[in-house]
């Protein structure tokens, strides 16, 4: 399918997402302008606080967006409100800083002349300082606007909508057209905002007061508008990561397999468990070995109609690397079949909930298995091991690294935290990494996109799935699947345990029955 075809067939959704995106941007920007200009002006009156305040605002901007969203989650939940607040916080720095420096940099003799002629302080501000600082303040607002359009795509991770939905689903599903359908409108929006603000800037000397008043009105109206429905939303909501939303073995398949229909929102996989724990959503599609199942006392719903396919992780390695270092197959075989579902959940739990360092958990586990862990090499990088961006992948990558360094003469370099299947797989194919842990199910559905009749034929048998992906990967990409670790990290529907007990839901069928009441 060409991009244009995708674009025209999804025009309705793109339009909606664009509108949501504009909404998020305009509202958070208006709040940031109101608060930022106010703070900046106040700082010029109390300059001894300026370093601390601008420093603090600057620190906020250095917090990674997902971390900030995670921090806001327990306070504000998911959806539009925390997204707007996060965007507002990110937009604050350039506006506060530019307002402050803009006014500070107005020629001292001009300010003194204004005061010396007997202008009251407010008039000095409105008639002299602000008009003269406007170009600098506006430069700050334009920077903030462009940043906000960009960061607003990230807010899709906490179910606020916007063009980020397409971008992240596109990345997760290896669908370039879908990614572009989000990215291109976002880029155009950024340019458009910049352009419009540029026009406004020329007129602003005349319209300074109306603009400030307008921003304040947008703030009040929108805050009450958006907050209202957010607070009183009581329906049963599912939170799914963008990848799950689009995959054949994810929500679409689940829907048809169980004839289940849910009100669903898009969530970042890292935030989804917290969202469930904080009762912001009621059911999520987690991973069956996640440590937080134990930590947050969640209950996994039984897949009674056997929908979720097997996801057995195994080291996926480039053929030529294996040819160069054939000893790797034997060495990594030491890990083959050694990790059970319970063990993996336990390891994840130690990292996610007990906050132990990954490497420490890995070494303890390997020592238990009776493996050597003492050698640590630095410097060279004969083998580069990648991982996707969640705990289990970090653990497996570290594990592979420790074993290789202890049982071969090779130096290992880690490139962990790659943002999804597509990114990790492309890095592998292009030789940026030499191996990473991949799941058989993901190989079958996402990478190979095996024909439906093949899927149906082998889906129930984990051995057959492994044999199929091993053969296909070798042929198509010259990649080798080594021996699987042993556990099955499949998708699993999970809820808060108290809910499952109260509502008497044990399986996905029970959930369907409950929802159709």
């Amino acid at each position, binding site marked *: 399918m060409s991009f244009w075809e995708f674009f025209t067939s999804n025009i309705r959704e793109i339009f909606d997402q664009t509108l949501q995106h504009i909404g998020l941007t305009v509202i958070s920007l208006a709040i940031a302008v109101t608060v930022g200009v106010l703070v900046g002006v106040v700082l010029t009156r109390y300059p001894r606080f300026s370093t601390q305040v601008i420093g603090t605002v600057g620190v906020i901007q250095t917090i990674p967006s997902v971390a900030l969203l995670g921090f806001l989650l327990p306070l504000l939940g998911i959806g539009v409100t925390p997204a707007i607040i996060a965007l507002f916080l990110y937009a604050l720095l350039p506006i506060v800083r530019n307002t402050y420096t803009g006014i500070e940099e107005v*020629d001292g*003799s*001009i300010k*003194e*002349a*204004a*005061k*010396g*002629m*007997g*202008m*009251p302080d407010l*008039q000095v501000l409105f008639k*002299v300082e602000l*008009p*003269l600082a406007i170009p600098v303040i506006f430069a700050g607002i334009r920077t903030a606007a462009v940043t906000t359009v960009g960061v607003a795509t990230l807010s899709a991770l906490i179910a606020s909508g916007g063009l980020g939905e397409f971008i992240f689903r596109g990345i997760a599903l290896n669908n370039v057209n879908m990614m572009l359908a989000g990215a291109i409108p976002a880029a155009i929006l950024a340019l458009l905002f910049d352009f419009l603000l540029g026009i406004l800037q020329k007129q602003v*000397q005349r319209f300074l007061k109306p603009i400030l008043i307008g921003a304040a009105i947008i703030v009040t109206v929108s805050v009450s508008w958006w907050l209202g429905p957010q607070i009183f939303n009581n329906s049963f909501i599912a939170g799914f990561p963008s990848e799950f939303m689009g995959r054949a073995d994810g929500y679409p398949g689940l829907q048809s397999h169980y004839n289940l229909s849910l009100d669903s929102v898009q969530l970042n996989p890292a935030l989804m468990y917290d969202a469930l724990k904080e009762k912001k959503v009621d059911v999520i599609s987690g991973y069956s070995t996640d440590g937080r199942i134990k930590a947050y006392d969640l209950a996994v719903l039984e897949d009674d109609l056997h929908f979720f396919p097997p996801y057995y992780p195994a080291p996926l390695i480039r053929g030529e690397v294996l040819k160069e270092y054939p000893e790797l197959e034997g060495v990594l075989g030491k890990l083959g079949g050694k990790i059970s579902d319970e063990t993996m959940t336990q390891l994840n739990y130690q990292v996610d909930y007990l906050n132990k360092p990954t490497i420490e958990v890995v070494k303890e586990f390997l020592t238990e298995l009776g493996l050597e862990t003492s050698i640590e090499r630095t410097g060279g990088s004969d083998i580069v091991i990648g991982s996707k961006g969640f705990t289990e992948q970090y653990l497996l990558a570290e594990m592979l690294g420790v074993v290789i360094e202890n049982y071969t003469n090779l130096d290992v370099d880690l490139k962990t935290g790659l943002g999804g299947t597509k990114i990790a797989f492309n890095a592998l194919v292009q030789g940026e990494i030499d191996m990473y842990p991949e799941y058989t199910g993901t190989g079958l559905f996402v990478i190979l996109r095996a024909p439906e009749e093949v899927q149906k034929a082998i889906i129930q048998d984990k051995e057959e799935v492994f044999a199929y992906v091993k053969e296909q990967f070798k042929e198509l990409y010259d990649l080798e699947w080594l021996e699987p670790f042993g556990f099955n990290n499949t998708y699993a529907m999970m809820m808060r345990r108290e809910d499952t007990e109260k509502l008497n839901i044990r399986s996905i069928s029970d959930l369907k029955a409950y929802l159709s009441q």
Partner: protein
Amino acid sequence: MPIIKNSATYGIHKVIMKNSFVIIAHGTAIKEYNGVVGNSQNSQMAMIEAINLTKKYEGVTAVDHVSFQIAEGETLGLIGTSGCGKTTTLKMLNRLLEPSSGRILVQGKDIRKDKPERLRQGIGYVIQNGGLFPHYTVAENIAVVPRLLKWKEKRISGSTDKLLEMVGLPPSEFSQRYPQELSGGQQQRVGLARALAADPPIVLLDEPFGALDQITRGQIQQEFKQLESLLKKTMVLVTHDVFEAVTLCDRICLMNQGRIEQIGTPKELIFQPHNDFVRDFFSSNLFQLELHVTCLGDLIPWLENLSPREGCATLFKVKENLLSILQHKNMGQNGIGIGDRHGHRILTTNCENLLSAFYQYKKSILN
């Protein structure tokens, strides 16, 4: 006493000042000074009176027990090296800075009794570079204070045009221009017009001509001196240019490290310095300054009437200073005629005679 006799032309208050300046000069003697004012000079109320002004910044004393009086219509020059406290003193007069201690009376009233804005609206303020608002036209700049005072628009535009005319900038050509389209000298003129817009009785000038080149400065200083609307103003001028102070000021207050070293007429400071600091301060240009503060009228007792060919000599007025006469382009060719204020010739002399009279005059003051 030649001093008193010669300065009688400045008006009676000058003489009063002269009698009291010795006491004024040092803050430590302030009680005595107040006593003098209280006893004999009550009838002559000062327009501005600074009493024991002190300003400290984090332990550093910028202005240290400074007291002075400025009579109505008088121009006082605050001079001294950078950091001597002259600008700080000026800014306390319109409350851009508040003194750490001491009081300022304007027309007998403590300036802290009213809002600072009200005070400032009644005091013209001219600063270096003009301090014009770059986003306002020339006319809008001049109209700032009248607008603050809520004048009617018609009155404002009328007075703006008059002021521009007065400072030599035709309103039709200049009123709609922006400051950055003007030359430095023109900006300074607009700054002056703006300070005079509401016709304040007091004008404060902080290095008003400091940023101009030599030629423009001299030109504007001359125009400034001749501006009729400034004649009745009480003015305080901060400058580091000795010639500017001598040219424009009735009295000069020389400051050093926050204290007044000497306050008096230019002639007093130059011919009768109180201490080495004052002497050193003027020493580098002493001869020129001496010529500058001496006028033809001062020399009359020592001048011979050479009565050369009548009518050929260039006629100078009695109040003309020697420096400008000696620098005059026709000087010396046909002798120097001296006329009274109506232009009637009193006597005719020449350059040699003039200089010897000057030395005799100087000796008479110095003994």
